[in-house]
Every structure is written in structure tokens, then in C-alpha cells.
């Protein structure tokens, strides 16, 4: 149960079920038992495309969230019609271009000057920023971020996180973010849950979460699960 407007970060060891959880919500897989409800609608067996008006998603792989051969403005025009019927109207016109320039300028990456540039020429960070923008256009109820900074260098990751913060606050989005970066998990959002073997073993929010450190998190994991938190990709920031 995720309340509206909440921003939850999800951590856990390999195979804990973090990505499975996001895939179940997005509709990539269907659950064997249980139901998925978004905004009171039972979407358990809806395919991915049918959930699009409800769910926006940024993927771990920057190549997945955008169409490489298409230009920046064409990619954005695909996002504008999120979950709506697509017709024989031209995908781009003056108004849409102006709107895209405004949205891109908010990213502060200079992309607003490169509307007709094929996305394949952008860096991984730029592509993730664009995907983030596309995932939030059309006001989905829920934004899923799936280790979306894992493929980026630390500086770019910081930049993308700052952009995320701004967009989430502006649209008051409900967010679920999976991350391997424990520091990021505590720095972003309002609530952190820790998963192990498909179960939620820790749920941190409010005052308790503000005080906690990365080392406390590791200790709590060991205490709850009786094992060390193991993950070949986990980031501890020394």
C-alpha cells in the first residue's frame, strides 16, 4: 500500500525481489497470487501499455527508455500521447515544440537547443534525464525508478537526482525507487523499505529515518535477516 504523494526508496540484497516488485507494478510480469491496484483500480492482469496512463517508468539501461534513431522532440511527442489514442495528426507542431523547449530548459542540460538531434548522439546521463521527463509527461499516478542512476558516473547521477527531486516536487508525484546506493536511498524520498527474499523486513520513515546512517542500515539488515547484506553492486560510500 503506497499512499498518494509518497516517495519510497527500496533497498535489499541480490534477489530480494526489488525489481520483481517494480515489474509487477509496471505489468512486465503478472503475479501468481495477489493483486495489484493503482488508484483503486485492479490492474493485476493489465498489459504494460494499458497501465501507461497510470505508471511512468525510468529504466536502469539508458538505452531502453528512449528511441535512439528518433530525435529528442519525436521522443517527447511519443510521451505526450501517453495512454491516449494515437491518430493521423502530425506528431509535432509549433505548440508542442514550444512546450518541449520549455520542459527541456528545466533540465538545464542545454537539450532545448537540440530538439532535432537524434537521441543516439546523447550521453547516458542526458538520455536518462530525457527518459525521466518523458516518464512524467502526461501526469502518471505513479513513477517507477529502477536503479536509474546505476549506469551513470557519480557526478551525472547527482545531477539526475537533483532533477528528479525538482520534477517530483513540482508534480507532487508518487514515486517508488529501487536503488543499490544506500546513501541515495536515505537521501532521496520520504520513506525507505528494505527487502529480503521477497519480504519487506524494514520500513523507515519520519524521525527514525532522518537519524539513521548507512552503517545503521547494514547492522539492521544483519539483525533482521540473520545474514550480511550482500550485493556485488551495492554502494557504501566509504
Amino acid at each position: 500500500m503506497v499512499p498518494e504523494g509518497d516517495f519510497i526508496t527500496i533497498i535489499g540484497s541480490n534477489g530480494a525481489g526489488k525489481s520483481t516488485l517494480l515489474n509487477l507494478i509496471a505489468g512486465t510480469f503478472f503475479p501468481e497470487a495477489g493483486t495489484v491496484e493503482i488508484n483503486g483500480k485492479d490492474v493485476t492482469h493489465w498489459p504494460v501499455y494499458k497501465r501507461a496512463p497510470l505508471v511512468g517508468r525510468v529504466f536502469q539501461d539508458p538505452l531502453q527508455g528512449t528511441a535512439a534513431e528518433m530525435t529528442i522532440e519525436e521522443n517527447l511527442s511519443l510521451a505526450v500521447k501517453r495512454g491516449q489514442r494515437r491518430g493521423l495528426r502530425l506528431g509535432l507542431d509549433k505548440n508542442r515544440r514550444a512546450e518541449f523547449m520549455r520542459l527541456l530548459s528545466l533540465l538545464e542540460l542545454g537539450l532545448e537547443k537540440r530538439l532535432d538531434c537524434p537521441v543516439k548522439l546523447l550521453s547516458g546521463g542526458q538520455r536518462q534525464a530525457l527518459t525521466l521527463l518523458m516518464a512524467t509527461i502526461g501526469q502518471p499516478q505513479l513513477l517507477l525508478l529502477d536503479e536509474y542512476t546505476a549506469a551513470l558516473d557519480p557526478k551525472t547521477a547527482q545531477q539526475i537526482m537533483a532533477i528528479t527531486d525538482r520534477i517530483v516536487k513540482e508534480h507532487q508525484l508518487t514515486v517508488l525507487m529501487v536503488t543499490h546506493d544506500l546513501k541515495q536511498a536515505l537521501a532521496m524520498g520520504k520513506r525507505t523499505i528494505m527487502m529480503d527474499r521477497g519480504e519487506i523486513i524494514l520500513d523507515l520513515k519520519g524521525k527514525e529515518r532522518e537519524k539513521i546512517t548507512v552503517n545503521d542500515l547494514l547492522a539492521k539488515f544483519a539483525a533482521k535477516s540473520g545474514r550480511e547484506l550482500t550485493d556485488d553492486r551495492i554502494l557504501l560510500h566509504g
Partner: protein
Amino acid sequence: MWLNILQGTIEQGLVFSLLAMGVYLPFRILDFPDLTVEGSFPLGASVAAVLIIHGVNPFLATFIAFLAGILAGMTTGIINTKLKISGLLAGILTMTSLYSINLRIMGRANIPLLRETTILTVIKAWGFPERYLSLIIFTLIVLLVKFLLDYFLYTEIGMALRATGDSPVMIESLGGNTDHLKILGLGLANGLVALSGALTCQYQGFTDVGMGIGMIVVGLASVIIGEVVVRTSKIVFATLGVIVGSVIYRLAIAIALQLGFAPTDLKIVTAVLVILALGAPSLRKFMIQDEFAERLMERGVSDAQTK
């Protein structure tokens, strides 16, 4: 004499450029290796021919042939997306079925269209100069189709189609039903191929059940030549490249014939051309590997020296 051959070659190139566009769409836009083409090309020809010999208006006959091609392409799309059979096999299944269907439609293996009313004879009767009749008509038809296709690929639905081949995960997460988009794209592509077949039979004056053999390679050769001539992924230029590629391909074939190649050898010549063109990146890598290694070694040595 030379001018006649040249003009005839360009006319053929134009008619076949519609086929090439029908190959470009699945192969380059949808990333779908569609072999339906080999069956939808003669399908268009046989539908048009049978309707024409039964006295149907040739424009209507050509349009119905186009619709028949759309149905054929959609069949492949449905086999692939709904029954989860691989795209390659789906195309082969439709293509094989079409062989029987085409024979059923025609009732025999070959229909001559001499002295029948075709698109070309109708327009000639309007008082068009016969000398350049086919050249002008085909140029107009091809340009019209090109502009309609370009426009379509820039519409909302057309862009979703392009995204389906480029990044299916993304377009699904934005609400595009990739199954439906694939079916639509394959339908459209094979409609163009059937249109090409319908015009071919009216141009050459007969339909043969075997006229589809090797068409996929012809289409691919045209697409690849076009990409060499027009190096851009921008749709308007890419489709122009396909047309130019088709004409150049026909010119190359005409030259090969003049050089004394037997017409029956042309298919292997085309196939080898396509293999060389598609394999060029790997071949180049294989050939320059040693050179590259040498250069790296040199740089390594000089780096060590400067340190």
C-alpha cells in the same frame, strides 16, 4: 537504342521502388525480417490481373490488389504477435500459403494482359504522349506514395510505429500496443509490395505465379544501395534513398545483362551484392585487425617513451 534501354530501366526501377519501400518499412523501421513480400508481390499481380481480365476498372483493380497485400501482411503480423511464432517463420508460412492462394486466384500459372485495359492504356486514351507515358505515370505514383508514407511516419501513430522497431520497451511503457503497431506496419508494407506487383503486371503485360521469387533480396539490395547513396536516418531522405537505390539497382542489372551475364545468374549476383554490403563492417574489421593492432602497439611504445 541506349536511351530506350535507359528509360525502360528507370521505369522498372520506379515500379520496383514501391516494393523496396515495402521491404524498407519492416526491415529498417520495424526491425522485422518480413518474408511475406515473396508472396504478396505476386498476390498483387494476380489480383489485379484477374480483375482486369474480368473487365473491372484497372484503377479499382490496382486498389483492391493493394488491399489484398495489406491483408497478407496483417496475417503475418497476427501469426507473429498473437500466436507467438517467430517473425521469420510467420512470414514464410504466409508466403507459402500465398503460393496456393495465388494459383487459386489466377486459376492457372500465367495470365497475359495483352490487349486488356490497364492503367497505362486508360491514361493513354486520355491523350497522353505514348513515348513517356509509363515514365511519367510511375514517377507520379511513386512520388505520391513516398510523400504519403513520409507523412504517415511523422504522424502520432507513425511515430509510435517507428518507436516499436527502435525501442519496444519504451513505446509500451508510454501506452503503445506493440502487437497492433506491428500488424499495422506489416499490413502497410505488404500493401505497397502488392501495389508494386499490380503495376508490374500491367507494365510487363503478364502475371506469373513465380514472379515473387527473389523479390526480398531485390528489395533489400535497393534499400542498401539507397543507404549508401543517401546517408541519413531522416525519413524523408531515407525513403528518397530507397527510390534512388531501386533505380540504381535496375541500372546495375541492365549493365550486367549488357556485359553478357545470363538472366538466370542475376539472382546470385544480387544475393552476393547484398551479402557483401551487409557483411562489409565485419569484413573490414577482419581485414584491418592486424593494422589496428600494429597502430596500438606503436602508440603503446610511444606512450611508454614519453613517460
